[in-house]
Structures are given as C-alpha cells and as structure tokens.
C-alpha cells in the first residue's frame, strides 16, 4: 500500500527576485540613507528610459508611453479637473463659523505651499499630509472633518496644488523619528500584499510601462506630484490615499486605513523620492 503523505508548506510565496538584488544596507534606521535612495531611484529610471528627461516624470505614464500621452494631451486641452479647481477655490476661501478660514491654518495663507507636504510635524510626532492638515484645520476651528477620499477635500487640495504649480517638491527629514517614518514608508513600498502577492515596487518600479493585464503602470518617480487626480475611471477627483486603497484592492488585499500611519508614511517616502520635481497637480489620468 502506498503511503501518501500530505504536506505542510510554510509559505508558498514564490519569490521572484529577477530584477532585484539584495541590498545589504538601507533597511535599518542606522543605515537608511534617504538621499542615496532618492538618487538610486532616479538613476534606475534614467537608465531604463534614457530618452525621458527627468522633469518629464511628473507626467507619470505619459512620460513613457507616446500612445497614452497623445490622448492625455487631448484631455488636457480642457481638463475635467478645472471645475474642481473652481469649486476648491470657493471652498478654500469660505469662512468657517468662527470667521476664520483655511488661510489662517497654513503658511503663506495656504497659497503655493503644496511642495512642503507631506511634512514631519515635530509637535505631533508624525507625518502630516496636506489632506490631514486640511481636516486638522477644520477641527481646530470647530468644523466637522471632511471625508478623506473625494469631494470637498480633494477639491480644496486640488486648488492648493494648483496655486503651487511649478514649485519644487522639498520634503525634509529633520530627525531620526522622521527617518523612522520614512523607513516605514519604504518598507511598505517594497512589501508584497494581497492574493496577487505584489508590492508597489513590482508595478511602479520594475513594472513601469510594461503591460500588466491591460494597463501600463506609471513610474513611481513623479507619482505623487500630480495628485489629487481626476481619473476617468472614477469619473471624479480623488486623493492620493484613495488611489493607495484602490491599488491595494487591485492586488486583492484589504486596503489599509486612509490617512492612517502606514499610508502617511508611504506618502512621505514616495514624495521624498520625487524631491526636486515640480508640483503639477491636479492631474488627469485614465
């Protein structure tokens, strides 16, 4: 009689490391070097797409794929987010019940400051994204928080980004606590999740401009510069964290919390990677 044994597999996670090599440093607080990471990321893309100028990466996939770019340029002739900028301006300037407005909460009255977000907030001991700052401003003035993903918060964020167009992203990592948040974001970026077992990096570093099902993922370099975006798929404007949640669902994982620590740190890491590029939000995407 044949004995059939059943087996226990520790993890059937197939680890495809074809494009990647193990780095020996950069994974601990002591060894992580954000500036080296940023330069490495830039040089990775410049080696892969030598014909694409660095400053064109703010246009995402449109920097890489001419067919998509042509359609996008046609859309940009009259972009659908223009209505949202208009609405955003009205909302931004509307006074709260106590007579104050958003302008009171931000440096320079909230105009032209998008490039400084997300930022490490010393007193709160955490990364503060623009959307978080908007809601904190509301709460400090006795107003209710807005929903995080779309609608008013995206419109206000869009207007603030619009007033900051062409300003250069300049995310600072002032201390070790901030560096720890950066490292956490970096870890999230390279971590595989969901049933498809994919990380952000799988699609947006290695997979940039390679057909994945029927889509061409954009490069992570310049990824955050054009948010919030009007996605044709959504049919409206949405925030970066809305997209994060969508990405995690796309790999069949339960999304992490919108504006939770993980997402804020991920945004911190991703935006740091795009330091030196300009703000071009809001954007239009497929």
């Amino acid at each position, binding site marked *: 009689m044949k004995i059939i044994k059943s087996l226990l597999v520790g993890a059937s996670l197939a680890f495809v490391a074809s494009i990647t090599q193990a780095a020996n440093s950069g994974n601990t607080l002591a060894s992580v070097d954000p500036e080296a990471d940023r330069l490495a990321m830039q040089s990775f893309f410049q080696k892969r797409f030598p014909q694409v100028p660095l400053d064109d990466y703010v246009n995402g996939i449109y920097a890489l794929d001419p067919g998509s770019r042509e359609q996008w340029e046609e859309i940009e*002739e009259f972009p659908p987010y223009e209505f949202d900028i208009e609405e955003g301006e009205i909302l931004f300037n509307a006074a709260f019940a106590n007579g104050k407005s958003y302008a009171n909460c931000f440096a320079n009255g909230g105009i032209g400051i998008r490039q400084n977000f997300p930022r490490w907030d010393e007193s709160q001991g955490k990364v503060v994204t623009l959307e978080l700052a908007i809601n904190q401003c509301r709460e400090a003035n006795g107003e209710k928080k807005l929903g995080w993903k779309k609608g008013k918060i995206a419109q206000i964020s869009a207007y603030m980004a619009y007033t900051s167009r062409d300003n250069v992203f300049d995310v600072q990592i002032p201390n070790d606590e901030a560096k720890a948040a950066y490292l956490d974001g970096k870890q999230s970026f390279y971590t595989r999740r969901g049933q498809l077992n994919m990380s952000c990096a799988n699609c947006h570093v290695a997979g940039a401009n390679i057909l994945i099902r029927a889509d061409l993922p954009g490069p992570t370099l310049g990824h955050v510069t054009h948010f919030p975006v009007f996605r044709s798929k959504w049919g409206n404007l949405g925030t970066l964290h809305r997209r994060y949640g969508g990405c995690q669902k796309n790999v069949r994982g339960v999304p992490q919390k919108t504006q939770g620590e993980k997402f804020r740190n991920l945004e911190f890491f991703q935006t740091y990677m795009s330091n030196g590029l300009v703000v071009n939000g809001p954007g239009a995407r497929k």
Partner: protein
Amino acid sequence: MAKGILRAKAKVKGDNTVVKIMAKHAMETGNRKDKSGNKIPAKFIQTLSVAYNGKTVMETNMGTAISKNPYLAFTFVGGTKGDELQMTWTENTGASATETAKIK
C-alpha cells in the same frame, strides 16, 4: 449657481477663433443601474449651439455616447477679442439655458 454648466475657452488665432467648450454634466445614458438595480433614467445634453454676432457658428447634436463632461472644440473664421459667444444647450429632459463666454 451664478455660473452655468458651460466653460469655454475661445481664443483668436490669426484670422480664426478657436473655441473649446466643456459642460459639467454626467451624461446619464439610461443604461446604467443604481445599487438597488433600478435603471437610472437618461439625462444628457442633446444639443449645444454656439452663435457669434447673431450667426450660428456650430450646432451639435449629441447622443449618450458622448463622455461625461462633454467636450467640443471647433474653429470658425473671424471673431474679435472681447466679443461674446452665445452658447445654448438643451437637455433631453427639456431643460435649456443660454450662457455666454468672451473671446480672448
């Protein structure tokens, strides 16, 4: 709302005026269903006509295959900076309005 649903960018280019118009409209096809499975009734812009100095320069009939936030671009001969364009839209529901935009 003080402002209508139309936004226009009209610019003089040489002897011509290039007009780009976008309407804020969902262009509901009548084929979609809501969460409880009921058909969402069709509601879309059917016609959009543009006049300059009392003369029609473009007349558009649209079906439900026109995208949400309909966009239209065309060029007509003539046009002076500062003059107004009259844009009239009608919905399949019968709703209608005329809005204006300045040529820049």
